C-alpha cells in the first residue's frame, strides 16, 4: 500500500544532482588552499626594496615598442594576470607585445617616508629606464590602471624618458568629484577630516584600514557575494572565478604613510593635479607637458572611479593623437575578464611600430 506524502504539491521538487554539486563546491571553497594566480611566464628584471619589475616576453614578438604596466598602490597587480585565458597580460603577450609590469610591493614600517615623488622618481622612472634598456627599444608605452593611471600620468608630465604612448584606464584625474558620501568629500576639503596625525602615528596605513576605506566608500555592509556564490555554487567555472576574485578583493596592501598624506591632501583635498600645482621633486607635474599619444578608457559600470574623474585629462594634455573610449564593464571586471587586453591592442597595435 502506497501512501502519498502530504504537501507534495505545495513544495516543488529539489534538483538533487545540482544540490550535491553546490555543496561539494562550497566545501571546496572552504577547505581548499587559495587558487593559484600569475600563470603567464615571467622573469625578474630589477628589484629595489619591495618593488619588482617583471618582464613577460611576447609569444611571438610583433611590435617593437613594449608595454609597461603601472598598477594602483592600493591593490596587488595580479588582477592583470589572474587566470589563464582571462589574463590581460597573457592576452597581450599572445598578441605579440613584450610586457613589463612594475609591482610596487607591500611597504613596511621602514617605508613610511616614501611619498608619491619617491615612488615616481626613484621607482617608476628607474624601472622605465631598466625596461627600455632591457627591451632594446627606443620608446615605450605606459599603461596605467586606476591609481596607477594617475601615477603614470603624473610621471609622463615630468618624464625625460621616451614615452611614445600613454594609456590610462579607469583613472582618477579630477578629484573634485568623489565616489562615496558627498559630506565626507566636503569634510575632507574644508579640513573636518585630517589624516596627518593618523599618518604620523601609524607610519604605514595598515591593509585592513585600506580595505575598510574602500568598503566605507562603496558598500559598508557586503555579503551579497556570498549569497551569489551559494546560488551559483553548482557551476565549477563560476566557483573558480569567484575564488580568484574574492582573493584579490580582500588582498589589499598597506599604504606608505607619506604617499597617503600626499594623496589625501594634494589630490583628494586640493585637487592639485588638475590645477597643475602638484610638485614632484622640483618640478610641477603639469599635464599640459604630456605630448605622447593618449588613450583614455572609462567603464560604464564603474562605481569607484566615475567618468567625470577621468574625462578632464583629454583637455589638459597637449597630445595631438588622443582617444577616449567608454567600455561596457565595471572597475574590476575590465581587467578580470581580460577585455582590457582587447581594448589596448585595438589602439596600440598601430602605434607600437609593428615589426
Amino acid at each position, binding site marked *: 500500500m502506497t501512501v502519498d506524502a502530504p504537501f507534495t504539491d505545495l513544495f516543488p521538487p529539489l534538483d538533487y544532482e545540482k544540490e550535491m554539486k553546490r555543496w561539494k563546491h562550497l566545501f571546496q571553497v572552504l577547505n581548499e588552499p587559495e587558487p593559484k594566480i600569475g600563470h603567464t611566464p615571467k622573469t625578474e628584471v630589477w628589484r629595489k626594496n619591495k618593488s619588482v619589475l617583471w618582464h613577460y616576453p611576447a609569444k611571438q614578438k610583433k611590435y617593437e615598442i613594449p608595454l609597461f604596466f603601472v598598477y594602483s598602490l592600493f591593490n596587488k597587480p595580479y588582477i592583470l594576470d589572474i587566470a589563464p585565458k582571462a589574463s590581460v597580460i597573457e592576452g597581450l603577450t599572445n598578441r605579440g607585445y613584450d610586457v613589463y609590469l612594475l609591482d610596487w610591493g607591500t611597504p*613596511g614600517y*621602514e617605508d613610511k617616508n616614501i611619498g608619491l615623488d619617491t615612488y615616481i622618481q626613484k621607482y617608476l622612472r*628607474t624601472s622605465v629606464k631598466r625596461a627600455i634598456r632591457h627591451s632594446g627599444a627606443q620608446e615605450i608605452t605606459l599603461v596605467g590602471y586606476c591609481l596607477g593611471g594617475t601615477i603614470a600620468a603624473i610621471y609622463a608630465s615630468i618624464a625625460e624618458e621616451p614615452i611614445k604612448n600613454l594609456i590610462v584606464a579607469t583613472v582618477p584625474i579630477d578629484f573634485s568629484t568623489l565616489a562615496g558620501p558627498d559630506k*565626507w568629500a566636503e569634510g575632507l576639503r574644508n579640513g*573636518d577630516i585630517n589624516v596627518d*596625525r593618523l599618518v604620523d602615528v*601609524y607610519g604605514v596605513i595598515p591593509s585592513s584600514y585600506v580595505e575598510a576605506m574602500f568598503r566605507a566608500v562603496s558598500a559598508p*555592509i557586503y*555579503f551579497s557575494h556570498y549569497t551569489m556564490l*551559494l546560488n551559483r555554487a553548482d557551476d565549477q567555472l563560476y566557483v573558480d572565478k569567484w575564488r580568484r576574485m574574492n582573493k584579490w578583493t580582500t588582498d589589499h596592501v598597506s599604504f606608505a604613510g607619506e604617499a597617503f598624506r600626499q594623496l589625501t591632501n594634494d589630490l583628494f583635498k586640493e585637487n592639485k593635479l588638475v590645477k597643475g600645482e602638484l610638485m614632484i621633486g622640483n618640478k610641477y607635474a603639469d599635464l599640459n607637458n604630456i605630448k605622447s599619444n593618449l588613450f583614455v578608457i572609462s567603464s560604464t559600470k564603474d562605481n569607484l572611479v566615475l567618468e567625470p574623474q577621468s574625462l578632464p585629462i583629454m583637455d589638459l594634455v597637449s597630445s595631438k593623437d588622443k582617444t577616449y573610449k567608454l567600455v561596457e564593464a565595471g572597475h574590476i571586471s575590465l581587467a578580470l575578464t581580460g577585455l582590457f587586453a582587447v581594448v589596448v591592442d585595438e589602439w596600440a597595435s598601430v602605434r607600437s611600430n609593428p615589426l
Partner: protein
Amino acid sequence: MSTKKPNDPFDSFKRYSEIMEKQINDFIFLLSNNNEFVKMANTGTEANSRYLEMFKKNQEALAGALNIPTRNDLANIASLTIQTEGKIETLEEQIWGLQDTLKTQSKEIETVVEVSKEIIKLTKQLKTELVKTKKELADSKDLQSELQEIKFELNKLNNLKDEVEILKGHVEKDTPKEPVLTGADSTK
C-alpha cells in the same frame, strides 16, 4: 515523473539578500552622510591617534630602559639597507654610462681601424706600383743603354761606311785606266 520545474531555494535567498544589503547600505549612507558624523569620525580618529601616540612613547621609553630595540630601530636599519641599494643602483647606472661610452668609443676605434686598413691596403698597392715602376724604370734604363750602345755601334758603322766610301774613292782613284785603242791601228 514530475513536470514541475525543480525548486532552487537559493534563487530567492540571493534576491532577498541583495535587497537587504542595499537597504542596509542606504540606511548607513543616510546616517553617515552629514557633517556631524564627519566631525565625530574625525574626533574618533584623532583620539585613537593620540592614545596610540602616547602608548608608543611609553613603549619607546620602556624599550630604551630595558635595552630592547624597537620597531623604529629596526626601521632605521632597514632604511640603511635601502639606501645602500639605492647607491648600488646609482653605481650600476654609472657603469651603464661607462659601458655605453666604451661601446661608442670601440665603434669609433672600429671605424678608425677600418680606415687604417684601407690606408694600409692603398699603401701596399702604391708600394707594389712603385716597385713595378722602379723595375720598369730599370728596364727602360737598360733599354736606353742598349740603345746608346746600338747608337754607338751605328755611329761606328757609319764611320766605317764613311771609311769604306773613302777607301772606295781612293781605290777608284788609284786604279789605272785601260788604254782605249783608237785610230787605224786598232785592228792589230
